[in-house]
C-alpha cells in the first residue's frame, strides 16, 4: 500500500539543538580514517581560516539520521521502519560546520511517490546555526520496500 501523498510538504519542527564538539568531530574523522589536521587540531583549523576544527563532509548525517526516527514515530504516516532503505543522500554546505556550532534541524517531506511496488520519500533537512543562518541543506531519498519485492 502506498504512503499517503497528502504528507508532501509536511514539515517537522526542530528538536533540541545539537552542539558540535571537537571530540565528536575527532571521533567521526577517526572512524572514517580522516587524519587531516583541520579536523583534529584547532590551531591548524584556525590557520586555514576556520573558527575551530572542521567537520568532515558527511558528518551532519548525525543530525539528519534523526529524521528517520521522526518519520517512523509519526503514526499517521505509517512508515515501516524494518523495510526502510537509504536510497541516496546529498549535502549542500552553505558554510562548513565547525566545533562550537549549535545546530537545529527542520525536516520537510518534499515528495512521496510509488514505483515498482516500492514507496519513495524525498526528505529535506534544513540545518541552521544559532543565529538562524542556514548552514547545510541535506536531501535523502528513503525507500520503503514493498511487501512482495
Amino acid at each position, binding site marked *: 500500500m502506498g504512503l499517503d501523498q497528502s504528507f508532501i510538504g509536511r514539515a517537522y519542527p526542530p528538536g533540541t539543538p545539537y552542539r558540535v564538539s571537537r571530540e*565528536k568531530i575527532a*571521533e*567521526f574523522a*577517526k*572512524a*572514517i*580514517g*580522516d587524519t*587531516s589536521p*583541520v*579536523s583534529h587540531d584547532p590551531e591548524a583549523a584556525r590557520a*586555514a*581560516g*576556520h573558527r575551530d576544527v*572542521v*567537520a*568532515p*563532509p*558527511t558528518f551532519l*548525517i*548525525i543530525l539528519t*539520521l534523526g529524521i528517520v526516527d521522526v518519520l517512523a514515530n509519526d503514526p499517521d504516516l505509517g512508515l515501516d521502519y*524494518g*523495510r526502510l*532503505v*537509504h*536510497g*541516496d*543522500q*546529498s*549535502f*549542500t*554546505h552553505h558554510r*562548513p560546520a565547525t566545533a562550537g556550532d549549535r545546530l537545529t534541524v527542520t525536516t520537510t517531506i518534499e515528495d512521496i511517490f510509488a514505483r515498482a511496488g516500492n514507496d519513495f520519500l524525498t526528505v529535506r533537512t534544513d540545518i541552521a546555526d544559532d543565529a538562524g543562518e542556514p548552514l547545510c541543506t541535506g*536531501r535523502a*531519498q528513503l525507500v520503503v520496500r514493498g511487501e512482495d519485492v
Partner: protein
Amino acid sequence: MTDVAKGYELPPLAVDVTRADLVRYAGASLDFNPIHWSDRVATSVGLPGVIAHGMYTMALANRLVTDWAGDAGKVLACSARFTRPVVVPDDDEGARIEFSGTVTDVTDGVATVTVTAKFDGRTVLAKATAQVRL
C-alpha cells in the same frame, strides 16, 4: 590545486572494511541499525549478511576528496546514490572497497570530483560527486 583541470585523477584509495570498522562508524554516526552489525537481523530482511552503512561508504568516498583537498571546509557539496550493498564478512580481512576520483568539471574555481567506489569488481555508489573549492 589551482591548476587542476577536467580529467585530473585524484590519488586512489583502498579501504579494507571490517566488522570492527562498522561498529566504530555506528558509534561515531549514531546509526545503530542492526543490519550493520547483526547477521541474524541482516539475513532476516533478505540480505546475505551484515552490510556496511551506505553513509560509511559515502564518507570514505569523500575522504578520498579531503585527503587530496586537505581541508573538509573546501567541500561545498557532496552526494551519492546507494546502488549495491557492501557485504562485510566476520573475519580479519574485511571487505575491500576501492575508490578512484576524477575531476569532471571546473567552473569558477569549483571542481566537480566524480568518485567511483568498487567492491568485488562492481560499483556500489552511483552519481557520487563532490564540489570542491580550488
